[in-house]
């Protein structure tokens, strides 16, 4: 499946297109379909995302799982600091 | 396109010809230099030239800054115009390199330009403008 991702302009957070907005949690991401780039461009012009691009992912039990390790790291946080990033929030650490 | 000038004289009317065209005709008084062109070929003609336009097709291509300084160092006193992708944020360094006119692809607000030019109270190095670098101020 194809997801649209980018960074939040203000916070720099990694964000994922949910179909109606942007979420920091990849579990909320939706299949962007063929219009992913156009969606990204529209959202970027409105400053709701910075530097959007399309990413390949597979379906997983807890939501989409990006195929490339870089995107998996973006989706969760640094693998060497499990207390930082989205992964920590999901664990209730941060 | 905004033209902003920092000169008291009238803007030069004659359009700037390309470097090739300049060397093809004997009476042009305005020439345009592209980033990859060697501005030193104009050194013998500086007395005749009233306007030299330095093209900035992309603001990140900084070759025009060297071209401008070289011309001022050689004694060119005519209008030195930066043309193209010129943003507010390049105005200070363009002036310091000797440009006294800007024609930008973007809208430039004259008030913001003046604000930018007044922002830094001192400069660290000598350039093509008349500003004294800090080391000169420190040691009289």
């Amino acid at each position, binding site marked *: 499946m194809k997801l649209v991702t980018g960074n939040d302009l203000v916070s720099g957070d990694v964000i994922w297109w949910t179909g109606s907005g942007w979420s920091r949690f990849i579990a909320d991401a939706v299949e962007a379909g063929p219009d992913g780039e156009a969606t990204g461009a529209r959202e970027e012009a409105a400053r709701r995302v910075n530097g959007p691009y399309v990413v390949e992912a597979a379906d997983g039990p807890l939501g989409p799982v990006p195929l490339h390790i870089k995107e998996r790291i973006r989706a969760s946080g*640094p*693998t060497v600091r499990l207390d930082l990033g989205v992964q920590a929030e999901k664990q209730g650490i941060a | 396109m905004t033209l902003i000038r920092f000169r008291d004289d009238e803007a030069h009317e004659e359009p700037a010809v390309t470097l090739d065209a300049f060397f093809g005709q004997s009476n042009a008084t305005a020439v345009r230099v592209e980033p990859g062109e060697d501005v030193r070929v104009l050194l013998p003609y500086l007395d005749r030239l009233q306007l030299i336009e330095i093209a900035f097709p992309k603001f990140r291509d900084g*070759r025009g800054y060297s071209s401008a300084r070289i011309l001022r160092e050689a004694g060119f006193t005519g209008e030195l115009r930066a043309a193209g992708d010129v943003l507010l944020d390049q105005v200070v*360094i363009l002036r310091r390199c000797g440009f006294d006119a800007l024609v930008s692809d973007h809208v430039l607000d004259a008030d913001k330009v003046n604000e930018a030019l007044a922002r830094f109270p001192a400069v660290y190095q000598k350039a093509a403008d008349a500003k004294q670098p800090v080391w000169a101020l420190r040691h009289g």
Partner: protein
Amino acid sequence: MYKYDEYDQAMVDARVEEFRDQCNRRLSGEMTEDQFKPLRLMNGLYLQLHAYMLRVAVPYGTLDSRQMHMLAHIARKYDRGYGHFTTRQNLQYNWIKLDDAADILAELATVEMHAIQTSGNCIRNISADQYAGAAADEVADPRPYAELLRQWSTFHPEFLMLPRKFKIAVIGADEDRAAMKLHDIGLKLLKNAAGELGFEVYVGGGQGRTPMVAPLIRDFLPADELVSYLEACLRVYNRYGRRDNLYKARIKILVHEIGADEYRRQVEEEFLHVKTLALDPPAAELERIAAMFALPPLDPTAPAEIDRSDPDFALWLDQQVVDHKVPGHAIVTISLKPTGGIPGDASADQIDVMAKLAREFSHDELRVTHAQNIVLPHVRKADLYAIWTRLEESGLATPNLDLITDIIACPGLDYCALANARSIPLAQKITERFANLDRQRDLGEVKLKISGCINACGHHHAGHIGILGVDRKGEENYQLSFGGSGAEDASVGKIIGPGFSEDGIVDAVEKALETYRGIRIEGERFLDTYRRVGSDPFKAAIYEKASV
């Protein structure tokens, strides 16, 4: 160290307001990202994997306790309580928000710090030897010249839109502790036969995709012509450096393509012209700056005897401490490479501890090394035990300087948007494999460097053992190279064979070092043995098929 006068302070203050205005114009949509990006980079602000990253300048790696405390404060207030010391002597914060950036710069400005030109296609932080001013082998302290060049390069109107980034290093001794020959311009202080101070000028070194050792362009440049000559060097680069291909835009490519002789010719021609412009600051300016780098009042009669009866203290002493040029004193390196730790990272608490130690024991001065450690440059030998005790309490007393676990590593794919592979977990695994200190000391000096991509921020080309992370069909893979050096015997490492998985390369490194132990001659480091015997014995050991 250098102290701002009202001009320096006014410059950083104005820069903060300029940047604040630029951020507002970006946030309001008046500027696009394409227009904003080069501007934010020139204030050290990157957009990385998880957030914005801010790179704070530590000019030539020197700072005082007040500045260190501010770095800790910013880590706590605006980031996640830690910072990362880099291979260019700077500090990076990884979790910055755009709308905090100008406030952070404003706070830094209150302690004479900034993030000016720590990124972008401009002249970057000028680095220097971390023992400058304290080492006995120095001809002169390189830092006054680094400061002179810092000011010259700051907001230099002609050189803010170069083809690519530009890195300068200055050293003052024969031993090159700053990897000077792997910089765009490397400057080495020396005296000529008449006793006059000047520089050897090397131009065109660098790492990245096409590593090169800089050729010597000028064998003696009088010290008072430094600015003019560099102006000429940079002008030739700005005019003729390639702008058609991002990967061929550094000055090393220009020097390589036209040849060192032709580059020198063009520079000398431009230099003749530039000299007529009177760009060099007067001697009085260098004297003014140099006076601020005068040696602190160190008492040469301070006791030199050290009580070594604590064996752990003795181990640390032997590894981390070298003699100062003043008797009774020493230079201490604080390791930021604990076993299993993240190389170069320090918590806000640790940064505060180091700041206090500097104020109490090192005449309020610290250095950041390009190997991502911290130095206390002016310490009394009599205080070493007390310093070690305090470092121990804060996890800062690992005795591994220049040993296998003193790894240089870039942040890699855990943090960096440019990376192809992670570097930190690999560094952690290697330090764990070699955790035994006796083993480390037996192996001796091994400079192992890891980069997560070809940009080589981990300086892997200059590693005795270098590791480059690559993306091999979506999987992380690691290439192993031997024989690099960033010292005065600068050389670029050579890849020895096919790449490895993360676990595979840890095994390969171990096999290489065991091979070294088996064939080394007395006194040889790993690098020396490799240079003597070549890669064959190592390849045989690493790539041998396991017998069934």
